[in-house]
């Protein structure tokens, strides 16, 4: 049990470090409209948590992470959320930012120019960042689990 994957120290440290990696990933996704990052880099950071586990636990351990169906559904849900947000602006034009500068959530109007950064502004964009982040995390995790679990039996 302890000779596939890496040593016991690496496995424990990887298990501990998953939590800060996930938190950092969500931070990058949620602040995408204020600081560098956004949907795709945040999703990639989330997927590195899965990659860390795959490397630490080896091919046999990765084969035991039987979560591909759930991750596939999460990916579809993320994509559908993105498409639904784009379609909701259809009364005006497709992809219209219908939440910006209005009174609804995420609709705070801010002046142009350098500012200290307001989280609840920019309309549809933080929601689309969230959708893209979830989707990228799910897709990259499926790729990592399939490739790392390939193993020497050539299956």
């Amino acid at each position, binding site marked *: 049990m302890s000779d596939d994957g890496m040593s016991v120290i690496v496995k424990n440290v990887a298990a501990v470090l998953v939590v800060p990696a996930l938190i950092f990933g969500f931070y990058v996704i949620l602040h995408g409209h204020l600081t560098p990052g956004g949907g795709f880099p945040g999703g990639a950071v989330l997927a590195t948590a899965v990659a860390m586990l795959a490397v630490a636990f080896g091919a046999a351990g990765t084969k035991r992470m039987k979560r591909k169906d759930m991750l596939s559904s999460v990916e579809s849900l993320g994509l*559908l959320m993105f498409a639904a947000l*784009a379609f909701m*602006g*259809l009364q005006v*034009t*497709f*992809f219209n930012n219908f939440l910006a500068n209005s009174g609804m959530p995420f609709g705070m109007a801010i002046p142009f120019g350098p500012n200290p950064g307001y989280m609840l502004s920019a309309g549809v964009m933080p929601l689309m960042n969230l959708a893209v982040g979830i989707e990228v995390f799910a897709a990259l995790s499926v790729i990592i689990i399939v490739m790392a679990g390939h193993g020497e039996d050539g299956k």
Partner: protein
Amino acid sequence: MSVMELISANAPALAIAVPLAAAFAVPLVARAGGKARNAWALLSFLVTEFIVLTLGMQVLSAGTVVYTLGASVPSLTSPDGFPIRIILQVDAMSAFMAMISATIATLVCIYSLKFMSKRTGLEKYYALLLVMAAGMIGLVTTGDLFSMFVFLELLSVSSGALIAMYAKGESAEAAFKYMAVSSVGALMVLFAAGMLYAQYNALNLAQLASAIQFTTIDKIALVLLFAAFAMKCGAVPLHMWVSDSYGEAPAPVTAALVVASQAGLYSLFRISFTLFGAVPATELLGWAMIALGTVSMFVGVTMALPQKDIKRLMAYHAVSQTGYMLLGVGVGLAVLTNPAAMAAFGFDAMRGGLFHVVNHALYKGLLFLTAGAVIYRVGTKDLNKMGGLAHSMPLTTIFFIIGALSIAGLPPFNGFASKLMIYESVFLFSPVLSVIAMLVSILTLASFVKVFHSAFMGPKDEKLAKAGEVPAAMWIAMGIMAVAIVLFGLFPDVVIDAVITPAANALIGQAAYIGGV
């Protein structure tokens, strides 16, 4: 607003968004069972077809349709004097190509309902087919250079995945070659887009077309774009991937790949006529296109003659027929600055080339689908192992004869109509090229006689005679294509006046494209 008004007001964006959203939903719908997934895929293809036909009728009656994504009104392209945001610009040529793409993709879906029914993983297959349709329609309706790169890569990735989907070693090898060539080509397009952006601070095609002066960097960008799109449509000497990928993909996927290559051909025409239409080098560019076309015709058909695999043979013929289209439109490009010559034969050459695009999509699609039907029943691709199928598969034999006579250019099928236009007009330009074109036609007929004799003629083989006719969904799709081929051949003027002439005018009229934004 009612649903119909919503669709006709937002048709360009919906034509891309509906297949994409449907593709995203396919894995979730597939959890409800195979029939739900098939019904969902068929329904979304039919809705896409309807939206594209609505868009086509709008464009053909009212002129160029412009759609800005995310603005306050769809036609508000330039609020401060220069275009911002992603703009979809649909003129007659774009609408023509979009209608071909949507129709052939729908027929491929109908055919796949039965052809693929025994395989697993079908939700991924239909999702990728929908993404491929969205990529094709997006590539032909977009109005800026960077979106062309994005949709080109979308098309390449989805079709590469479809080629290798039912993986033996050979299909993975073919898909690897296809992806390597396509991604290098797309990176060259991105490099050229970066160069043009650095010079003129704009990515919109209309804005670039009005601002272009022909500096050295523009010349490099033109060469990169021309080479990349020639690689995408399979012109010689960049044709190596065509035989492998068309030969190894499942038959309905190959029919869709033919239309994908023609979308690359559209992009080649768009950058030659519209983006670089006002530079002093159009005659040289036209001669380059004519040279590529002639070499493609000849090399394609001579490499097709010794093939033993039925789909590889048809793939080399696809290369050869692409040469006809490049020849016809290239003659039009070469005389673009010469109004007398254009009115005499250039316009007819362009119309012949564009009519050949739709004819080729129809008869090449039909031929690949009949090859798929034969492989479905017989189980092998090797011509030496088939024989006597005319006795047991009468409908497929008739469809194959229609397709083969059409590709060889015999009346009354549509191949004859477009090839006659090309021969007549190219003869007035340069008689040698016309003679080469007719020679290639004869060699095409020769190779299809060989295929017909090996596969369908001959005594009834007892082992193969147990195979009956193909299921209903498959011959319905083939039948629709065959009926269209015969109708286009008997009444070519209807098609030419309604669709082809506005498309050719849209390509020549660069000022109309710039004025739309």
